[in-house]
């Protein structure tokens, strides 16, 4: 063992239960079929800091050892005699090691020494001992599948007599070298190869534009003493700025659309401008005309902002983090949620207070038992990793995860979709300035705050803009450190309120290149001195420093006069702040290292020089037909099976591992009722403890309808999110003059590669046509409800390619909605409240079983896709707002997956009530009445004394179905026959013991009390 390197091992004392070891043994048996025998887990800390024997021993026993639980071994790998094999799990160089840093923190406190916590002196590892002697290949498989990820971990395995240690030594390699990349005179093929080899993700036309630009400015560059060819850093900056991820080239493209069925043709001049931005401008015009001027910031900055009241703003942002989650589910999800947190945090001046997180996840079937492609992770593993990432990202940041959704479809087995949303509250004024404005003047300093820079996450922006394949790069993987970000967040909140920061932005995709590149557009230029950027370890090239996406960092613009106070606050709060340059107004982004030019780019070319894409879309209506199902269906059995199906069953095991009530403001949580098992439609969170104002949060996503018609899928998803908010008591906006009832929506499109290529993407035109139709529905929905979009994102290449096979996600759009709730005490939950309350169906059911979960049970798709009838829907939602004003509704549940039958069953889950229901004779078949997923419908209950007023209010929009009963039986009759008769406890049992809770290993729940 290295003499300057010491090892501390913590083992559980004999008799203490080794839960982790037991779980590893069980998982190895269950998922890999490996019999390990008993597994012992131990923790290792390798100390690379000069300490005496006595100091090491005392540090281990006083700071690391839990005297009740642990034994300590020093400079040895202690194990019981019965163990035959070992697995050591260490981290690769440069991978975030929060546990090691924590131990180091403790050592600094223990020694009362100022240990630099930014240089790693202590490395944490896990060392497992296995009772059985397993071949190295099995041990390695166990390690890679269950204990870590080869992208971030280094594994040592073997017989126990030969334990090999490994401690990362980051650094080495290249130094501060800047190369030029010959571009002028390259052929088309060479340009394409250059782009691919360097992961620039630029196409031929874009590479030509860069080449032509450099050819045209050759003389100027020569006069300025710059090389004729671009430097590596310049090309990296251009590639990142022009990436699909940052520039949304396909949403800005000219699209030639053709409807092959009708022959109709038209041209879309940017999807974003036509269907999203212009639609919201029209909504804003209508809002303002009616005295509603709460729309403060849309489609600019890191997140959208609306006004809650004269003192405060609500800031709302939802993003995806799909590609990283496919490679490293835990790291991808945690950086997704932490990265998304930074958006509201760094909106305007910065320093918003985070109020809640929400997330929507799309996975392949976790019970998949086929053969995986090269480097494809099993859907169950992606699910578990992503779930853990969201748990740690939210819980450790102290931000409640108030709701979410999980959608399963085999087509998400290559690339999962991980949508992360964050809502925040910000004062309207910060130190006397409008908080949402970003102002920067020349000479303001550029401050980097938070974590340090390493090689992790280089090329994230460009990498997420291409499809994944088996050779996807390891450097794209990052691990978030919630604690580092929490410190930076606490600091930002204080610094902005003291007026120390002029504005801030986060370092996400593209790192400093992106954050400074964007901020510099405000003042008109910047000078960056890269040698000042603090690094995690030496050996980064200047371009790597500039584009690295190392997490938990913010870029701040600070007036020179405020620097002293800012720096001392940073020191007090232990947040590293570094002055890395200043803003200018000379029109160029000037990047230097030790005074040498690394990059000098004209800002106009950088931000506006990207050539516009021209794309083709062609729509043909898919041929589909309604299936013929057996006539003698047992509807009780069908309902039970639906409740236990993958897309409907309980997510309780996932939900309960997220903290959904830290901050003490969550009023409607994902699961409510006396049982804590009644699923809710939208979350409701109050803003503070001094008023009852709050916000409702919902998510609409319905990818399976897209197989029938992408327009109706998108319209339906929009309506689903609206009706969830209406269900909990939210009111549509702009119903009366100056009602101040804000709504704020984020759209997130995740689609497969939709750029036509005869060889690699022959159905590209059809996919793009779907996207166009999704956008058209968005425009129509926005206009119909007068609900504005405030921010959004698109992810365009959700394909996974390996072994000659391509798995593409179905075109998917998520609408994440928030709306003001005037008084959270008047909100409505979904569960039945009292026996004898009268049960109503609100809205109309149509013969729309196409794409339903009911058909899915029979392996059918059907044809009749549910359509949103916007006018009728809006009228119903308006009536509901009025009814809630009068307190006429006791419970309300929106109908979606599984239709009325599932909605009725779920409403009984809160307490153990039953319901006695008679379906009307409407001419509509029983299957459709029970299971159609027609939009804009609710099941609601009304107190007996309010029935007259309720029926008068809703007229024909309400259909009386029956009553809530005390007897825990759900009975549904139709035409004199009993269609469904089931114990609600049994139904809840089916729902609770569905595949999701089984897979996450949730304990058997007690049946209703």
């Amino acid at each position: 063992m290295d003499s300057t390197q010491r090892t501390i091992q913590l083992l559980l004392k004999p008799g203490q239960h080794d839960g982790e070891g037991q779980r590893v043994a069980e998982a190895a048996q269950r998922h890999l079929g490996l019999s390990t025998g008993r597994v012992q887990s131990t923790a290792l800390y390798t100390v690379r800091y000069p300490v005496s024997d006595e100091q090491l021993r005392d540090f281990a026993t006083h700071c690391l050892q839990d005297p009740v639980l642990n034994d300590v071994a020093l400079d040895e790998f202690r194990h019981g005699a019965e163990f035959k094999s070992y697995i050591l799990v260490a981290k690769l160089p440069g991978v975030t090691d929060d546990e090691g840093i924590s131990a180091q923190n403790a050592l600094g406190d223990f020694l009362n020494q100022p240990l630099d916590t930014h240089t790693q002196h202590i490395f944490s590892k896990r060392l497992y001992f296995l009772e059985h002697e397993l071949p190295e290949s099995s041990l390695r498989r166990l390690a890679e599948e269950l204990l870590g990820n080869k992208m971030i971990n280094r594994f040592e395995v073997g017989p126990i007599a030969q334990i090999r240690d490994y401690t990362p030594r980051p650094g080495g390699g290249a130094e501060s070298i800047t190369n030029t990349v010959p571009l002028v005179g390259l052929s088309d093929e060479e340009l394409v190869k250059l782009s691919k080899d360097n992961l620039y993700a630029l196409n031929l036309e874009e590479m030509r534009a860069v080449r032509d630009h450099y050819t045209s400015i050759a003389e100027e560059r020569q006069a300025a003493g710059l090389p004729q060819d671009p430097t590596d850093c310049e090309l990296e900056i251009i590639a990142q700025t022009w990436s699909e991820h940052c520039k949304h080239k396909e949403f800005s493209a000219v699209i030639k659309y053709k409807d092959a069925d009708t022959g109709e043709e038209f041209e879309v001049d940017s999807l974003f401008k036509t269907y999203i931005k212009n639609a919201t401008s029209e909504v804003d015009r209508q809002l303002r005309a009616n005295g509603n001027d709460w729309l403060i910031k849309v489609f600019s900055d890191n997140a959208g902002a609306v006004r809650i009241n004269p003192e405060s703003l609500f800031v709302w942002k939802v993003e995806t983090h799909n590609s990283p989650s496919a490679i490293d589910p835990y790291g991808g999800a945690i950086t997704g949620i932490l990265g998304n947190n930074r958006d509201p945090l760094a909106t305007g001046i910065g320093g918003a207070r985070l109020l809640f997180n929400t997330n929507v996840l799309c996975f392949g079937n976790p019970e998949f038992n086929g053969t995986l492609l090269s480097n494809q992770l099993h859907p169950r593993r992606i699910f578990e990793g992503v779930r853990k990432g969201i748990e740690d990202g939210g819980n450790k940041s102290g931000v409640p995860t108030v709701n979410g959704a999980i959608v399963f479809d085999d087509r998400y087995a290559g690339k999962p979709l991980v949508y992360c949303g964050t809502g925040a509250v910000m004062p309207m004024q910060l130190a006397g300035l409008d908080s949402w404005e970003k102002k920067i003047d020349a000479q303001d300093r550029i401050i980097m705050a938070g974590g340090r820079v390493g090689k992790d996450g280089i090329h994230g922006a460009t990498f997420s803009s291409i499809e994944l394949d088996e050779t996807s790069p390891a450097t794209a993987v990052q691990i978030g450190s919630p604690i580092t970000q929490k410190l930076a967040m606490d600091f930002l909140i204080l610094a902005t309120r003291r007026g120390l920061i002029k504005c801030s932005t986060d370092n996400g995709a593209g790192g400093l290149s992106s954050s400074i590149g964007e901020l510099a557009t405000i003042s008109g230029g910047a000078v960056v001195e890269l040698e000042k950027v603090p690094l995690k370890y030496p050996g980064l090239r200047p371009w790597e420093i500039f584009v690295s996406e190392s997490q938990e960092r913010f870029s701040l613009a600070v007036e020179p006069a405020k620097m002293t106070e800012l720096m001392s606050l940073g020191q007090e709060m232990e947040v590293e702040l570094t002055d890395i340059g200043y803003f200018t107004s000379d029109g160029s982004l000037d990047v230097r290292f030790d005074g040498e030019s690394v990059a000098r780019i004209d800002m106009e070319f950088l931000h506006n020089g990207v050539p516009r894409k021209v794309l083709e879309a062609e729509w043909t209506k898919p041929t589909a037909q309604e299936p013929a199902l057996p006539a003698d269906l047992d509807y009780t059995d069908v309902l039970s099976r639906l409740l236990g199906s993958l897309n409907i069953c309980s997510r309780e095991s996932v939900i309960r591992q997220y903290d959904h009530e830290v901050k003490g403001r969550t009023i409607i949580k994902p699961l409510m009722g006396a049982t804590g098992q009644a699923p809710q439609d939208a979350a409701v969170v109050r803003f503070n403890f001094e008023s009852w104002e709050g916000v409702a949060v919902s998510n609409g996503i319905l990818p399976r309808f897209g197989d029938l018609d992408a327009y109706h899928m998108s319209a339906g998803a929009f309506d689903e999110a609206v009706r969830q908010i209406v269900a909990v008591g939210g009111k549509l906006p702009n119903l009366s003059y100056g009602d101040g009832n804000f709504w704020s929506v984020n759209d997130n499109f995740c689609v497969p590669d939709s750029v036509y290529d005869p060889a690699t993407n022959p159905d590209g035109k059809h996919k793009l046509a779907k996207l166009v139709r999704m956008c058209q529905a968005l425009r129509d929905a926005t206009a119909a409800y007068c609900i504005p979009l405030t921010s959004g994102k698109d992810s365009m290449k959700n394909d996974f390619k390996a072994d000659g096979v391509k798995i593409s996600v179905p075109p998917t759009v998520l609408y994440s909605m928030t709306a003001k709730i005037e008084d959270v005490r008047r909100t409505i939950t979904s569960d039945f409240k009292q026996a004898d309350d009268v049960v109503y169906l609100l809205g109309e059911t149509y013969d729309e079983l196409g794409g339903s979960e009911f058909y899915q049970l029979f392996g059918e798709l059907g044809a009749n896709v549910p359509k949103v009838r916007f006018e009728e829907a809006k009228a119903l939602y308006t009536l509901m707002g009025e009814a809630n004003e009068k307190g006429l509704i006791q419970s309300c549940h929106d109908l979606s997956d599984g239709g009325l039958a599932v909605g009725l069953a779920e409403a009984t889950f809160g307490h153990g009530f039953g319901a006695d229901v008679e379906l009307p004779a409407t001419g509509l078949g029983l299957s459709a009445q029970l299971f159609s997923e027609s939009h804009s419908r609710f099941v609601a209950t009304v107190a007996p004394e309010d029935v007259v007023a309720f029926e008068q209010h809703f007229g024909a929009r309400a259909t009386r179905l029956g009553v809530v009963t005390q007897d825990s039986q759900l009975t549904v009759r139709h035409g004199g026959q009993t269609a469904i008769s089931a114990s609600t406890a049994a139904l809840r049992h089916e729902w609770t013991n569905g595949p999701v809770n089984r897979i996450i290993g949730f304990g058997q729940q007690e049946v209703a009390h």
Partner: protein
Amino acid sequence: MEEQPKLPDLNTPPRPQHDHTAPITDADGSLQVLGFKSVDAGHESTEPLGHSAGGTTAKQPVRALILTGFGINCEEEFAAAYKLAGAEPTIVHLNQVLHGHISIHDYDILNFPGGFSFGDDLGSGVVLANKLRYRKNAEGRTLLDDIKQFIANGKFVMGICNGFQVLVKLGLLPNLSGNVTPEVTLTHNASGRYEDRWVRLKVNPKSNSPFLKGIDSMEVPVRHGEGRLIIKGEETLAEIETRALNCLAYTDFDGSPTDVYPHNPNGADLNCAGLTDTTGQVFGLMPHPEAFLSLYNHPDWARRKRQNPGLSEEGDGLRLFRNIVEHVQGQTAAVPQEASQFSS
């Protein structure tokens, strides 16, 4: 309480500190308290919180100091609880206290909120407990030295969730020996997972802690992954029981203490959810009373309100805070000088 723990750092001379900053002062040279007094994200202000309505204006308000920073994240609701209970809460960054810019002795109740202090990577609360025990300020005192003095002065310490873990890892709970050395521990839940769920607690009727006076039972959420109390040795266990330091127990729907999951969410020894020290002045618990300040925090609020429209809008958790604030008010009325004894 005068006995010092026999730990190696006592022989180590004070060393230069990590931090050289002077306290941040304003133009008049008076100390600026870091952190917000406002707990109100919708109506933020840097002004001190107003006192809650009530007839206490003539008296010196009860002052609660709430620590934050380094991953602590339940400070806002903690402060709201004190405010609603009629006290004056102040949230400060730990470094303000560790560096001696704020003296805990100016306050009546010292509070350690929940969260993930320093990420909890070495075990919940370990790094923070370590910092309190070893890190010395410019005068060579650790914060633990001050806390011991604070308790000796008859003042109160409360820890919730991660704060409870800190008090346990530090040895302030249960502190049977009086030496402030760890005697029990809190570790991974028996389920092996973090969980957020609501539980019912029964108060040990023999507990002497003023925090729990007059309370029989309460409902509160638990939100933790490491809340399983493990007590080393039969003797320790017996002494904790005899002295009724196991002040809170998880119960089933009938109100009987239980070891059955999920009523007992973590498998704790003695079904124990909270501990006091022998004086009753130091109190910690895994569940979050500060997350049940209003009726509308409860998962079943809507049905309960339907059943009983006149139901109080206050949550169970608030009773704890009202208790301790009233208790301190009673004390200060009796001994007016005590509160300011250690103020400079």
